[in-house]
């Protein structure tokens, strides 16, 4: 195993790592004491800003900057929503943190609330994580008893309540404004922005939405300092004016066709190949990789030749992927059919589209219908153009939808077909030898609603 000393995962193998006793024994809640006695909320925001911490939930937005968008001198209340909906296929690092080191998550949450002056935090947890619910709830209970939560925390004038809120198995509740709507008791339809949550979020009040791993990083920044944080990772790419650099430790999820799937902590900027070889023990069964998802299925595909891509916020974009996403790498060996991969991806997004925006609702469903037809041996070469047309026109990047789910649906389509086009063409010609050149429209009615 490589020599990087884990920080976020430092405690998870200790017996009873989820208890307050073990957490405190390894220095837990020291950062909170330090912040409450030595820092103002503004100073903490400045600290996080200067660390260049970027959100770990998928978009990589600078955390300190997001916090500074909150209105100044707001009478309150300000709300913190911790995004623990973690539903991006391939992703499970938040689960590991919540199950094995819930106090680290809670300390980061308290610190983030102190910085933003939030007095209530909701942890929006996906339904499928019952153990995380149990562990977080008992961590919260321990904190109230120990004076880390509730009124006048550790004798300061800062008070905070944290509540668990369970989702109901819908991917779109991870999108921050879908989460907010769901928390309010409505269908999880993402909101049109602006207004951004910092101005008008949950219950029409200023709100910050942060990921579990993001707030966990805050604790370590307070504890170890900005110098330490910025000594890990990769500096800004000078050719990309929108890249502020990628700093800090990162939890990578590795699954699919590798020998040792798991959640591994490494410096931001490790290459996909290093992750697979040094942490994952290589591709399984002595086979070669054919492709890998770089950061959750929404991010698209790396080919074998692109596996040396750095997994930092800038890297995957350089080879045509959407971004780093959740840093969840899914490896596919040489036996995997890209038609099957794309079918799986399209089925997921058709199932999870919330249906508000026509390009997303129709685009995800029709792309699945086309993939179903191709898989059934009735594909046409023209279908590839249709799929690419869908891929190029749905999403917030082309500017046709409310939220980024549609971009996540588009990228696997664009990457799979553009990077593996000959495989698609060969499959269609082989399985539909008499019809692959047909260009007339296919009758539509019998194929709607297939997922």
């Amino acid at each position, binding site marked *: 195993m490589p020599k990087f000393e884990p920080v976020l995962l430092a405690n998870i193998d200790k017996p009873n790592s989820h208890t307050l006793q073990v957490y405190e024994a390894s220095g837990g809640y020291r950062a909170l004491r330090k912040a409450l006695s030595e820092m103002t909320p503004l100073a903490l925001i400045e600290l996080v800003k200067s660390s260049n911490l970027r959100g770990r939930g998928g978009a990589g937005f600078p955390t300190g900057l997001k916090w500074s968008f909150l209105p100044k001198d707001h009478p309150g209340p300000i709300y913190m929503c911790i995004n623990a909906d973690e539903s991006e*296929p391939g992703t499970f690092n938040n689960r590991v943190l919540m199950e094995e080191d819930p106090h680290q998550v809670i300390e980061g949450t308290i610190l983030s609330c102190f910085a933003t002056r939030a007095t209530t935090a909701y942890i929006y947890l996906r339904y499928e994580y019952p153990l995380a619910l149990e562990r977080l709830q008992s961590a919260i209970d321990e904190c109230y008893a120990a004076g880390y939560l509730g009124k006048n925390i550790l004798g300061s004038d800062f008070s905070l309540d944290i509540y668990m809120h369970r989702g*109901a198995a819908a991917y779109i509740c991870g999108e921050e404004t879908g989460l907010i709507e769901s928390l309010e008791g409505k269908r999880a339809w993402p909101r049109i922005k602006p207004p951004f949550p910092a101005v008008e979020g949950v219950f029409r009040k200023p709100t910050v939405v942060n990921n579990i791993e993001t707030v966990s990083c805050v604790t370590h920044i307070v504890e170890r300092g900005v110098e330490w944080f910025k000594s890990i990772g990769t500096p800004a790419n000078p050719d990309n004016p929108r890249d502020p650099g990628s700093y800090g430790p990162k939890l990578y999820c590795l699954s*699919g066709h590798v020998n040792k799937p798991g959640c591994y902590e490494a410096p931001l900027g490790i290459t996909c190949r290093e992750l697979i070889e040094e942490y994952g023990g290589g591709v399984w069964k002595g086979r070669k990789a054919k492709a890998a998802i770089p950061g959750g*299925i929404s991010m698209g595909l790396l080919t074998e030749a692109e596996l040396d891509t750095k997994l930092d916020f800038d890297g995957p974009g350089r080879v045509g992927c959407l971004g780093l996403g959740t840093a969840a790498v899914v490896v596919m060996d040489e036996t995997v059919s890209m038609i099957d991969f794309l079918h*799986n991806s399209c089925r997921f997004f058709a199932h999870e589209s919330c249906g508000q925006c026509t390009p997303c609702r129709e685009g995800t469903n029709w792309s699945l219908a086309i993939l179903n037809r191709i898989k059934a041996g009735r594909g046409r070469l023209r279908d590839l153009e249709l799929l690419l047309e869908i891929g190029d026109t749905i999403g917030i990047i082309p500017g046709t939808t409310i939220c980024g789910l549609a971009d996540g649906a588009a990228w696997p389509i664009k990457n799979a077909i553009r990077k593996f086009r000959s495989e698609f063409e060969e499959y269609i010609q082989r399985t539909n030898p008499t019809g692959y050149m047909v260009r007339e429209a296919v009758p539509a009615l019998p194929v709607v609603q297939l997922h």
Partner: protein
Amino acid sequence: MSDRILTDEMVAAIKAYFPRYPTRRAVTLPALHIVNAQLRYVPLQAVVEIAELLELAPAEVQDTLSFYGFFKQDEPHGEHRAWVCRSISCALRGSEEILDHLCHAAGIRPGETTANGKLTVEFAECLGACEFAPCVLDGMTTLKNVTKESADAYLAELGIRSNTNGQP
């Protein structure tokens, strides 16, 4: 009314959530979960009663409920509800075969419940346990690295005898 569905315990559990949120409406999902955990479904009458507690129109609760495929309304799901992940990491390691096998062995189709009322089998999207692919979630239990053999053992524990006679 004599045919109320929500028990006093459920009502008390729902009301205990009120202080957590500035609006009653935010208690919709917690309330649905409380009822569903007891009844294994949320019939329309329960929707009406929840709406009354939350000072909402029944249609508002129904609107939210129907957005999530999670809550059944026609009949309860089985004592156990097994979610078989079909997303990419699990699919790469044979989850489609596991879903087929479980359903075939239990004599049901995805979404259905066995005749003894013990088990409902459903597909799920990524369960966030991809390092254990293929995996199945049943309540608090995650079945990890599931094989046809371990799937049969799981069924046997529920008193469901595989009707495949060793055939796939």
